[in-house]
């Protein structure tokens, strides 16, 4: 599964779930400050990662994800392992 697919899946989820605008979803966007994503929303993101990519995410891993790019990279790296 390539980066493009990961980006599209994650972005579609963020648009549907949090009603974010496409223009906001730049790789360098900081989840908390730029997208207003709360720590409690990370739970949903963990669920979608598991559902869409079959990856178990621990809370310790989630806490290290700061930007959207971190999130895409995390999914891609975990898929390789």
């Amino acid at each position, binding site marked *: 599964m390539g980066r493009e697919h990961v980006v599209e899946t994650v972005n579609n989820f963020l648009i549907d779930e949090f009603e974010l605008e496409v223009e906001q979803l730049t790789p360098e966007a900081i989840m908390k400050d730029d997208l207003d994503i709360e720590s409690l929303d990370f*739970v949903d993101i963990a669920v979608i990662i598991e559902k869409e990519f079959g990856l178990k995410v621990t809370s310790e891993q989630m806490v290290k994800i700061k930007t959207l790019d971190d999130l895409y990279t995390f999914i891609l790296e975990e898929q390789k392992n």
Partner: protein
Amino acid sequence: MSSWQGKTRGGQFGYWFFIQILKFPGIKFAYFFLYFVSTYYVLFVPKARKPIFWYFRNIQKFSFIKSLVFTFRNFYVFGQVIIDKVALMAGFAKNFTFNFDGEDLIQQMADGGGGLLVGAHVGNWEIAGHLLERINTKVHIVMLEAEHEKIKSMLDSVMTEKKMSIIAIKDDFSHLFKIKKAFENNEIVAMHGDRFLAGTNTIKLDFFGKKAEFPLGPFLLAVKYKKPISFVNAFKESSTHYHFFATKGLVKSSKSSIKERHKTAENILKEYVSTLENSLKKYPEQWFNYYYFWDNI
């Protein structure tokens, strides 16, 4: 204004010490001992005394002398509340009487798919655990890691057979996964809505006519998971009597957009602050936040 620093006075030794007093001389002696403890705090613990005196003088608008008297009373009642809490956990429940306003509302919440109970550091919210035992569902009490660590071993010893569990708030968000699971299981989650740690999402609201900062997190939880939210507290009305209050479970739906969700949570928070203000007008001495809670300090 300073936020709560994540430290709680007292600890396991304090609890152990009072259990020993409860077992032998009894609760009245423990209360008597508090006159000395309260005097000590008024005279020698300015870090705790100053914010409380300020609260009576500037928030409750009491005279200088009345503020001083109430500062002493505040420490005294706080001591009683801690002793009562330990007494209940140690099995001395028969020493107390309770009346409940809203127990049926919490039972309805339990029967209808769970919900969120939000208290504050006022009165003796923990004693409400005595009531929550009677509620026919599992109750998860969310507390800050620092508070939990202090009393963990004691809580573990009294909660093993109860339908209650503790969810400790941690930096790694693991508590959020546990809260989500509790809601999915249609259980009840209980937490405080007045304190926060630096870096968390807060908003400033009028509280007794002055701005004070409150955490938005608990209220966002209720909106996000579409669960009813009830404001609960238990106030001490005499040395052996408590009055428990619970408001009707509020259900506020919101669009999923983050902005809308915040707006809805903020509206619930305003109702919480108003309820808290009304309670403190009735029980002014039962405010137990020993730091400068309001702005402009």
